[in-house]
C-alpha cells in the first residue's frame, strides 16, 4: 500500500475530500486511488513472487520521472498511454472503462487459467487502480509484467507486434532494431523464424 502513497506524494494539490474508503482504497491529499480486486491480484503477484517492495523499488517516482514524461509520446495502438518502469520489469498502462469492465468479468477465470497453466504466454496482470483527482478526469491504470527481457540489448534483431492482419499493419520510415514493427514488416522482411515447440 505504501508504494501508492509515495508515488503520489509529490502531488500537493488542495485536498480532495474523500470519504473513508473500503479496504484497498488509498486516501491521499489531492487524490483518491481505488485498487480493484485486491485479493486476486495479491495472489497473482504471489504466484510470480512479486512483493510490494519490488513494485516500490521499480516504480519509485524519482527513478521513473523520465519514463513517465515520455508516456505522452508513445501512445499505443489502442490510444492508451503506457510506460515501462526504469528497470523495465513492469509496464503501466491506461485502461478504458470498457477494458476495465471486461477485465472485471474475466478476472476470476484468468486467475484460474494462470494457476493451471504457469507457462501461459499471456502477459501477467499485477494490479488495477483508478486514480481520481480534482479537476481531472479519472484514470484507470493497469500494472503488468514486462515480457521482453533481452540478455543484451545490442543483440536485439527485431521486435514485432502482430495481430494476424495486413490491414494498416505497417511501420513506415527508418526504424531501429529496437523499434516495434508490425505484421506487414514481418512479411516483407522475410526474416526466417525457425520452428519452435510452444509448451
Amino acid at each position, binding site marked *: 500500500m505504501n508504494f501508492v502513497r509515495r508515488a503520489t506524494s509529490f502531488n500537493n494539490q488542495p485536498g480532495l475530500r474523500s470519504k473513508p474508503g473500503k479496504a484497498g482504497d488509498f486516501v491521499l491529499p489531492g487524490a483518491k486511488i481505488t485498487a480493484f480486486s485486491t485479493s486476486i491480484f495479491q495472489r497473482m503477484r504471489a504466484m510470480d513472487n512479486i512483493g510490494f517492495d519490488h513494485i516500490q523499488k521499480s516504480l519509485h517516482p524519482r527513478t521513473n520521472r523520465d519514463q513517465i514524461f515520455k508516456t505522452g509520446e508513445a501512445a499505443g495502438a*489502442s490510444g492508451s498511454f503506457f510506460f515501462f518502469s526504469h528497470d523495465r520489469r513492469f509496464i503501466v498502462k491506461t485502461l478504458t472503462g470498457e477494458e476495465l469492465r471486461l477485465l472485471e468479468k474475466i478476472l476470476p477465470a484468468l486467475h484460474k487459467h494462470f494457476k493451471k497453466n504457469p507457462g501461459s*504466454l499471456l502477459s501477467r496482470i499485477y494490479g488495477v487502480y483508478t486514480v481520481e483527482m480534482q479537476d481531472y478526469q479519472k484514470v484507470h491504470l493497469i500494472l503488468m509484467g514486462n515480457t*521482453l*527481457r533481452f*540478455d543484451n540489448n545490442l543483440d*536485439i534483431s527485431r521486435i*514485432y507486434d502482430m495481430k494476424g492482419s495486413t490491414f494498416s499493419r505497417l511501420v513506415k520510415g527508418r526504424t531501429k532494431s529496437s523499434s516495434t514493427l508490425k505484421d506487414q514488416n514481418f512479411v516483407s522482411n522475410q526474416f526466417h523464424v525457425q520452428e519452435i515447440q510452444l509448451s
Partner: protein
Amino acid sequence: MNIMDYSILLGIESKVLIKTEMGDFTADETDRSASVSSTAELERFKRHRFTSPDRRWTYHVSIIDFLQFWNCQKVGEQFLKTKFLGANKL
C-alpha cells in the same frame, strides 16, 4: 458481435555461438548466473523465452493487449483514423 482482440509480441535476439572442445555454447549460457538478479525473476521471463533449434536465436514470445474488443465500431474507427490521420499515426 464482440471478438476479442490481442497481439503476439515477438522479440528476436541473436546469440553468438562459441565453439569449444567441450561443445558449443552461447555467450549468456556461460555467465547467466551473473546477469540474472533472482531465480524468481528468471522464471518470470523464462516462460516467454524460446531457443531456436540451432541455438543462434532466442525468441521472446507473449500475448499482449488481450483486453480489447474488436467490433464493427473499431473497424470504422480504424478506417477513419487511417483516412484522416494517416496510418503512421496509429
